Each structure stands twice: as C-alpha cells, then as structure tokens.
C-alpha cells in the first residue's frame, strides 16, 4: 500500500531461480528509507551474511527514500545501494549511492526498493516497467560499455522512440505513456570481469563506486536493471513542500540571470558558477558546455559538454589524474572511467605505480612487472588509457593483479608492509584510499575505521579545513574567524560546544571531539544515507553567496520540515539522530557477524609513525585561543587512539572489549532478534 513518500512495494529477484517476490514497504516503515531500509532488508533477506562478495547468496539492495522522486532539493534523486563489498578488506557489508534520475525512475516503476540475489546461468538484464519485472537475456550486451548498454536498453524499452518522444509503457490502451527515458543502472567491462574497483553506473557520469558492487553485479551475470513507469509519488502536504522548496531556493540557490553558486567550501567564494564539477571553466576553451543537475535539485553542479566528453564528471573521477596539465585529458579520463565502469576514487593508484617506477621497483621486467605499460608516457592520456584498459579487462598478470584492488595487489607483490609504513601507499583503512589526512581530520579516519569504508562526508571538512586554508593561501579575509567558525558549527550541529571542533594535537582525542564524531555518524547515517541528501550540497551550514542577508542555514529545521511535508510524520532532530544510531548499530551487528572485532580497527602503519610534512590547515584550539593550525609533524598516537575506541564504543552502547553491540543496547532499540542472532553466533557484546 502506498503511503506518503513511499509507493508501497519492494521487490526481490532471485537470478538463480528466476523467481520474483514482492513485499509491502509498510512492514519496513520504521527504517524510513535509503540505508536504513536497505540494511533492514539485508538483515532479513541475506541468509548468510558472511559469504564472499561473489557468492550467489550475496544480496544487493537498491533503496530509495521518501524524498526520492520529489523535488526536495539535494535529496530528490538519490538511491542507496548496499551489499557485501568486493572491494574492502575484509569484505564488509557496505554501501554506496548515486543520484541522477534513478531513484525517481525506480519509484515511478512501482518500487521503493529492489533486491537481487542468486546468479543467473547466462548474462541477463532486468526490465521493470510499471510494476512488471522481467528477466531478459543480456548476451548481446555483454562486453558493451556502460553508455552503450544504456542506449541499447533505452532502445528496447522505448521501442526505438527518439529522445523526448512519447512511448507506450505497455501493450494496452491504458498501460500508460511517458517521454522519460528509463533509469538504468548497469555495469561496464570492469564489472563483467569482476574488477573489484568496478562501479554501478547510471546515465553519463553517475556512479556508485566505493564498494565494488559493479563486480557483484558481474558475479551474478547481471548487466543492468532498467526502471520505467508512469507512477507517481504521493506527498502529504504538497503546498508546504513547494513553499519550503522555494524558501530553500531563495536562500541557497542561484539567480540564473546572475549565477553565483557557492561550492560549499571557500572555493565557492572564488568559483561562483553553476556546473562547478570541474571547478574552473578557464581550461574549457571554446568547448560549449552547460550546467546539469540531478532530479529535483537546483544546484546544477555537474557539467555537460557539447562533445559529450567528460559529461557529468564529478568528484574524484574529475581529478582522477590530478597531475594532468590540461582539462581535455581529464575529461577524456572521466569518460573512460565511466564507460569502463571503474571507480574514480582509486586516483592514487597511478601515482603509486609511478613512484614504484621511479624507485626502480615497477616497470617492464622489474619486481612489479608492469609488462607493456610505458611509464615514459606517464603524464599523458595514453598512459592512463592503457593502464585503465589493462585494469578493466584484467589484461596480463599485471592487470589481473591490479583488478583485485591496489592493496591486495601490493600484498601479492610483497610491497604492502613497507609502502604502507613509509606512507607512499596511503591507504589507511580497509583497503581504501586516503581521503583527507587521517592524522588530523579525524571525523574521516575515526568514522571510516569504525565503519566499513571511507566515509566520504564533507559536511564539516569544508569549514574546518578548506575555507580557512583557501582564504589564507589567497590572502583574503575569511568570512569567519576561527572562533566564529567553531561557534557556528557548534550551533549548526546542535552540539552546542565549540570544543567539538578542536583538531589540535590534544583535541582529536577529547571527549568533545568524540561527541562530534558520534554526531557525524548518526547524522550522516540518517539524513545523508537514509534520506538521500547529497554530500555535495548538504548540510549547507553556511551559504556565503546567499542572496538574502542570512548566511547561516538551520539545516535541522529544514530537514524535519521537509520530512513532515513529504511523509506527514512528525520527527524531531533528536529522533532523527536516534534513528541514525539505530541504523548504524544494525550495521555494526552485521559487521560483527562478518568478523569485526576492535582488534581489527587499526590503521595502516604510516598513520601512527610518519609525521605530516605538508601544511594541512585545520581549525584548532591551541594555547588558549582558536586558530588555523598548519598541523605539521602530526601522527596519530596509537595508545590514545585505542582509548578513543574504548570511549567511542561505550558512547555507542557497544562492548569496549570487542566492539560488538550489547543486548541492552539492541533491546532498547527494539532489535531483540538481532541480539539473539549475535548471541547465537557468539558475537554479542558483554
């Protein structure tokens, strides 16, 4: 039954048997949507949560949220995708997400969430049209890149309709018509070849990349899922939603006639243009391009080009080879990554290989035999094309090694211990690339090590790191003093203690800092990953380029008002954080079953032993005053981090000795059956 924000149905497809089951979304209403919904479904429907990622029993869940498909800014477009990760070490239950049009298309096709398990005997794709699910042969599509795959599926589903033309969604007069191209999620050659860095792709440049779920699709012989339909999403109070939308657009949007978009960091103070995914337009030359946005969003942060090269490129993909001296090569690399279906966030891999080459370790015929890879062309697109092609197709022994993920490859090459100790291999946890300095910006490192992957959440990072650093470098007056920034964040997060944002040598181990890390985990688990707010637009604590006089944004107020307008349900900010805690604890229970123990939550050696040597501007309280510290010479103290873990587990209601959730915590959350399952497995916290 449809409820406000939900279309009412969840599908489970078993590719091994070809069976399709449907469930009422209402049963999972308490989990709301996105990650919460996906994790609850994974808990119920993945029979053995300890299997290998490529085992047919692995369950992939694609979950929308109540905002999906509506015009809630920054949250109307996203789906959360979960399953056992093929990339992380070990293979944790993990997550990724994407925007574009997929979430809306899935709900218009009749489903709030879509689950896939089993393995098809031959390559298949799944077509979902107005609630009808059919499994179709993908033999002809196997080998196509992600753009070719989507075009092939669009042609089948739309019956060859041209872009913008109406097409019938069924064979009867009343089966409906639409002009919307199906929303397709698919894999490229990398996913087919079980490359652990492979992505799930949608449209030109939307990718769910950090968990190797593309390879999980490939292991199931699943090329794509296509969603199409004429359904609609009922919201509780459309007028209120419209008013909030317009209010947000006034405060956070831009004037199309005089665009000045704030990238949330101080870079936004310098680069005030929509379509800032490539950040500056200086290098675009005469190539025509325009900003492009996800469904429902007014930010339009991506960019499409007249020649289609690099369309929708974003985030790490757009800087994959940050050493490229021209944006043309960068755009070509973006396209290549997306067409092959490779994760742009593995951007340190070529840099590391070049370092090994200069050390005399890697190269044709050397200890790490790179075969025909020509490092003399390192700074060229040709090098990148050759490297990524070898990776996506597992070409040669070298390509095959790399396709297991760089950290697994370095272990095979006998390099991991030395290179992760010296820091030339900066992969601090779970096989993931360093993302901001783990010795300083501990929201990221603590959050990632107690979680399942690189957290990839920029909400605090913009203000504590980028803004002050950029202003200092440019010699311009920052919009806020360090003290004002700490106070602003204390107010915006409702933590009400500026010391929560002290990244000094002492501050990163403080109780106040741990409160902020805890807030970050719970907030993100609910509003970002379960309600689908996009990290590149939300939470926008401050809008420097606001067209109104008010530059601070009460995100919490907007969030609960939007929730009420869409679902009709009252939810306080505190309740939302409690839901985030509950969802995170269910995650933790799954990881516990998979073997998680506090002893595993240890960073790579360089984090503890190699001091920072480059400036890393960060907010700090030192010698009785707030300042922007360069944070030089910083390491993470091993013993103090162990103490951090103990205190954090205690805050979360987990056993400090093991890191496993306790029965008391689980029962308080209404998760008695989870406690029983952990106890049966010998993984219940004392």
């Amino acid at each position: 039954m449809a409820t406000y924000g939900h279309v009412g149905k969840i599908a489970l497809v078993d590719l091994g048997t070809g069976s399709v089951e449907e469930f009422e979304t209402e049963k999972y209403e308490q989990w709301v949507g996105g990650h919460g919904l996906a994790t609850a479904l994974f808990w119920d429907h993945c029979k053995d949560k300890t299997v290998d990622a490529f085992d047919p029993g692995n369950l992939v869940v694609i979950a929308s949220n109540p905002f999906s498909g509506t015009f809630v800014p920054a949250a109307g477009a996203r789906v959360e995708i979960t399953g056992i990760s093929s990339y992380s070490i070990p293979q944790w239950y993990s997550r990724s997400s994407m925007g574009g049009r997929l979430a809306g298309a899935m709900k218009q096709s009749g489903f709030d969430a879509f689950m896939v398990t089993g393995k098809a005997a031959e390559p298949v794709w799944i077509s979902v049209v107005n609630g009808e699910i059919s499994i179709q042969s993908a033999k002809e599509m196997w080998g196509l890149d992600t753009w070719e795959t989507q075009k092939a599926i669009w042609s089948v589903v739309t019956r060859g309709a041209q872009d913008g033309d109406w097409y019938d969604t069924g064979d009867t007069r009343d089966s409906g018509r639409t002009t919307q191209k199906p929303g397709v999620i698919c894999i490229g050659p990398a996913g087919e070849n079980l490359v652990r860095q492979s992505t799930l792709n949608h449209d030109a440049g939307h990718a769910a990349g950090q968990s190797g779920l593309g390879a999980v699709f490939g292991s199931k012989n699943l090329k794509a899922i296509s969603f199409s339909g004429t359904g609609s999403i009922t919201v509780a109070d459309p007028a209120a939603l419209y008013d909030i939308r317009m209010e947000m657009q006034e405060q956070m949007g831009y004037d199309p006639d005089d665009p000045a978009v704030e990238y949330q960091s101080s870079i936004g103070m310098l680069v005030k243009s929509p379509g800032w995914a490539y950040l500056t337009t200086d290098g675009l030359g005469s190539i025509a391009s325009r900003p492009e946005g996800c469904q429902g969003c007014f930010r339009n942060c991506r960019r499409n080009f007249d020649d289609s090269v690099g369309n929708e490129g974003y985030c790490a993909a757009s800087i994959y080879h940050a050493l490229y001296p021209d944006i043309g090569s960068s755009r070509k690399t973006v396209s290549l990554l997306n067409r092959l279906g490779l994760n742009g966030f593995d951007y340190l891999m070529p840099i590391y290989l070049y370092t090994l080459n200069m050390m005399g370790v890697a190269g044709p015929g050397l200890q790490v035999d790179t075969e025909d890879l020509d490092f003399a062309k390192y700074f060229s697109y040709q090098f990148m094309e050759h490297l990524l092609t070898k990776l996506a197709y597992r070409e040669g022994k070298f390509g095959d090694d790399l396709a297991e993920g760089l950290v697994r490859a370095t272990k095979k090459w006998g390099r991991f211990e030395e290179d992760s100790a010296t820091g030339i291999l900066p992969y601090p946890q779970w096989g993931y690339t360093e993302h901001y300095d783990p010795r300083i910006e501990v929201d990221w490192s603590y959050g990632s090590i107690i979680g399942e992957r690189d957290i990839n959440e920029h909400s605090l990072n913009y203000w504590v790191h980028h803004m002050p650093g950029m202003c200092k470098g440019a010699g311009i007056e920052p919009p806020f003093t360090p003290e004002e920034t700490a106070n602003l964040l204390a107010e915006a997060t409702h933590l009400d203690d500026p010391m929560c944002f002290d990244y000094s040598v002492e501050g990163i181990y403080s109780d106040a800092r741990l409160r902020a890390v805890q807030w970050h985990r719970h907030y993100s688990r609910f509003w970002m990953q379960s309600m689908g707010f996009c990290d590149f637009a939300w939470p926008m604590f401050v809008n420097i380029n606001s067209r109104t006089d008010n530059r601070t944004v009460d995100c919490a107020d907007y969030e609960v008002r939007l929730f009420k307008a869409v679902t009709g349900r009252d939810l306080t900010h505190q309740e939302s954080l409690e839901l985030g805690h509950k969802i995170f604890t269910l995650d933790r229970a799954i990881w516990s079953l998979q073997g998680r123990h506090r002893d595993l939550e240890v960073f790579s050696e360089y984090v503890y032993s190699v001091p920072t040597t480059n400036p890393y501007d960060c907010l700090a309280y030192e010698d009785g005053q707030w300042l922007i510290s360069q944070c030089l010479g910083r390491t993470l103290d091993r013993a103090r981090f162990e103490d951090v873990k103990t205190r954090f587990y205690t805050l979360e209601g987990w056993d400090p000795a093991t890191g496993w959730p306790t029965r008391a915590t689980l029962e308080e959350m209404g998760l008695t059956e989870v406690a029983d399952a952990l106890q049966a497995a010998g993984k219940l916290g004392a």
Partner: protein
Amino acid sequence: MTALEDAMGVGIDPPTILEARHYTRQLGWEERFDLAVEVSRVGNINTSCYCPQDVARYLMQQHGVGIDLHGSRLHVDVDRLNEWIESVVGDVAFAAAIGRAVNPSDPFFSQLDSLRAVFVRRLNQYQDTLTEQGAAAAEVPIRGGVDPGASR
C-alpha cells in the same frame, strides 16, 4: 637580462648548452623533491619531482587565484625548493632568481605566481639554448608552460 626582468626578479643569464643539459636531467628517487597537490575533493596528494620540468608541470596547472583546473592548490616549501634547485639540480642562478622573485611575506598564492614566472623564464631558456645549439633533446622534455598537453 633586461632591467625590467631584473626588477621583477626573474632575470637570469642564459645557461650554456652543457649547463642546460645538466639542469634538465632526470634525477633519481633519492634525489627527488616532494611537494603536495591539495585537491579539493580528496586532500593532500603527496607527489615527487625528478627535474625542474616536473615542478613546472604542477606550477603551470595553477590558474588565477591559486586553484587549478581541478580545484587543486599546491603546497610547495619554497625554501626547500630553492635549496633543491641549488644543491641537487645544481642551477645556482635559478635558485638565486627564485630568492629574488619570491617574497615570503606575500600571500602564498602570490608567491606561487612569482615562482611560476621564474620557472617559465628559466625553462624557456633551457629550451632555447638546447634548440639554438641544435643539441639533442633534453633527457626530459622541457615545456615551461608552452606545451602543456604533450607527453613525456
């Protein structure tokens, strides 16, 4: 060296062909110069330079107010760079020009602008000398910002 160049601090007498060849040689791992490219989406990427041309490659990416095409900014220890140019690369005149051109009290992005000007000047001198003398190409191609798309 013109009076204007001298006033700007970028003036350097051209190198001889032997000097140009020597200064543009590719150095080994132990002789590298480390810098960091801070990329807006990911943080600091530590990377190494093995010749002045490598340093120039990163400097040339910087556009306008210190951020480059990728929204990145450089972290270069100018003092350490100067020392490397002088003692490892061996180009004393180049190091001296950097010392004249870069004012440590300027905002860092302004320092990068000055550094870039000296690098362009010196790398073009290297290239001109080698070209005019009909010498074999340098071990590592020299760009000085004029041919940013070329491969090594």
